[in-house]
């Protein structure tokens, strides 16, 4: 097993698939010669050449339109949208074209592509470069949506996303790029649609995604010292959703918390909390509590950004308080 950064795991996942399938190509702003603004595509140009690794103009609609047209005609493009905030400038291509064209044509065409994008806060980039928008994509029928939290999952789920015959929005947790972890040697693929119980615990179930997973794990350590044994579930895949794992965990513990980086309203946690409410109603001992960023744009100053996003401290204290009720 090799130690890789989250950042390098992205390139490793893409490289593994480009090696395996000549139809895999990648395009985006500054991704070729420069290896990406977040250095998640380093080495791809050197290794696979300019016919498969393309620098683009600042034209997100053209980037994703090009990926869609190529996917409809035999390629398997990986398109980078540098910051997930920028999905807004090409949202029509994502939500109205890529997501719907297979259905509108009743299956005449398929659109196997991956949109990889740096998501979430923590870098003091302010309101237009820090959003966690997994819920934007989850709300759109026709999109698969994943958000890995470890280098191993990054590599393995990127591979699975590229092999998937449908469009996948691949959220990379910006704040986790420098983090490291073990990544299995050789070909590594982690199927989409599987949640991962990353910490066992009998007292309550904590559902977390992306950058919130390590925070939830840290919070669990604190809670353990207070005698609260929290189970942590890395949701990983929002669409397809591993409802089986999530619902059985919720039923077993009877106490559920979500930890969401998105602003309060209509987050992925609202969907899952409603689902749990519908299907585990009689097994719940208390309300499902959502721990989220307040419903505000993200501020830039470090003290403010830290106050806005769910912190280990807020996660732990919220859970402790609720469990004490």
């Amino acid at each position, binding site marked *: 097993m090799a130690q890789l950064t989250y950042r390098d795991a992205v390139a490793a996942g893409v490289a593994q698939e480009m090696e395996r399938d000549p139809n895999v190509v990648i395009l985006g702003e500054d991704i070729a010669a420069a290896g990406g603004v977040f250095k998640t595509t380093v080495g791809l140009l050197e290794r696979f050449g300019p016919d498969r690794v393309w620098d683009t103009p600042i034209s997100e*609609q053209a980037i994703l*339109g*090009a990926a869609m*047209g190529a996917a*409809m005609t035999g390629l398997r493009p990986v398109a980078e949208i540098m910051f997930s905030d920028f999905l807004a400038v090409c949202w029509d291509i994502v939500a109205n074209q890529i997501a719907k064209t297979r259905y509108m044509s009743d299956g005449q065409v398929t659109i196997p592509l991956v949109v990889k994008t740096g998501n979430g806060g923590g870098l003091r980039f302010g309101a237009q470069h820090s959003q966690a928008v997994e819920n934007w994509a989850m709300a759109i029928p026709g999109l698969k949506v994943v958000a890995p939290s470890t280098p191993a999952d990054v590599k393995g789920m990127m591979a699975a996303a590229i092999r998937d015959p449908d469009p996948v929005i691949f959220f990379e947790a910006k704040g986790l790029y420098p983090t490291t972890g073990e990544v299995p040697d050789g070909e590594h693929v982690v199927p989409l649609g599987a949640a991962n119980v990353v910490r066992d615990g009998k007292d309550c179930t904590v559902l977390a995604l992306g950058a919130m997973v390590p925070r939830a794990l840290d919070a669990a350590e604190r809670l353990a010292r207070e005698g609260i044994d929290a189970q942590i579930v890395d949701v990983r895949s929002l669409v397809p959703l*591993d409802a089986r794992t999530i619902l059985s965990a919720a039923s077993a513990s009877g106490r559920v918390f979500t930890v969401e980086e998105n602003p309060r309203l209509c987050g992925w946690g609202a969907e899952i909390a409603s689902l749990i409410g519908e299907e585990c109603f009689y097994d719940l001992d208390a309300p499902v509590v959502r721990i989220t960023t307040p419903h505000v744009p993200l501020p830039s100053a470090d003290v403010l950004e830290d106050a806005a996003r769910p912190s280990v401290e807020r996660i732990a204290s919220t859970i402790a308080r609720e469990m004490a009720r």
Partner: protein
Amino acid sequence: MSATVAPAPPALDVETREALYRSMILLRVFEKRAHDLFLQNLVKGTSHLGLGQEAIAAGFAHAMRPDDWTFATYRGHNHTLARGADPGAVMAELLGRANGVLHGKGGSMHVGDASKGAMGSYAIIGAHLPVAAGAAWSAKLRGTEQVAVCFFGDGTTNIGAFHEALNLASVWKLPAVFVCENNLYMEYTPIASVTAVPNPAADRAAAYGLESWIVDGNDVEACYGAALAAYERARAGRGPALIEAKTYRHGGHSRADPAAYRPKGELEAWLARDPIETYRARLREHGVAQEAIDAFDAAALALVDRATEEAKNGPLPAPESVTTNVWADGGSAWRN
């Protein structure tokens, strides 16, 4: 800004001329029939007819290779049929039947037949230009010498996606041909009142390092010639073309539109330049017998009559099909 005229067609043999005519007359009869079926309330939802713009669809399609790609707009019946899609299946789609070319999932604004290279109709302005660029990009990468041809209107030249697609296609030298059908209106608004240049597409070509080509969109041979020249350049790796075809729609923007905003006499003037009437005359000049022309007309009518019957007699889609074909596995499951 001076816009140059697109290359003229080579001398055409009579078979080609007849083929161009047969294509146009089929589109004309089909669209008229579609209009009749609205009035009978058999066509559901809205529909945008290409009556008067048949020369562009016929000319540009006839110059294509079978494996070339067409990307159309909500005004896409003509372009889909011109690639050889089954008129019965297209008509059935307008009626929302299970035997529709999209089995009722897409409707009038999204008709297409990928098996014929008609890659679908796109109903949000501008979106399909980058998508066509993407198809051209894959042709270039795979070395297939296929061309992606994208049709859109004058009003579409003012939206951002147009700009991004043209620049990308030019920088990457993609085999994409962008055909602007300038019918003088964006919906109900005269295009001149919302556009900074007189020729919405041609006057922008230079902004993408492209030659500006204008073609008479009511002259099917001129369209065919411009298409041949553009496709040849594109296949040879010499990059995209942006072609502005001047034309006019005989009807309203959509079924809801009586087109009251038109200045008096405008329609009449353009009807006098009807692409089909004028081409009938030209065919006769070129020695095609009136009987032959009448036979083509009769054949088109017969085809559309049969298409109409197929559509009317088509079964309704099964409600269960609402949840099919979201995913490549044929289903729509978002959870286990």
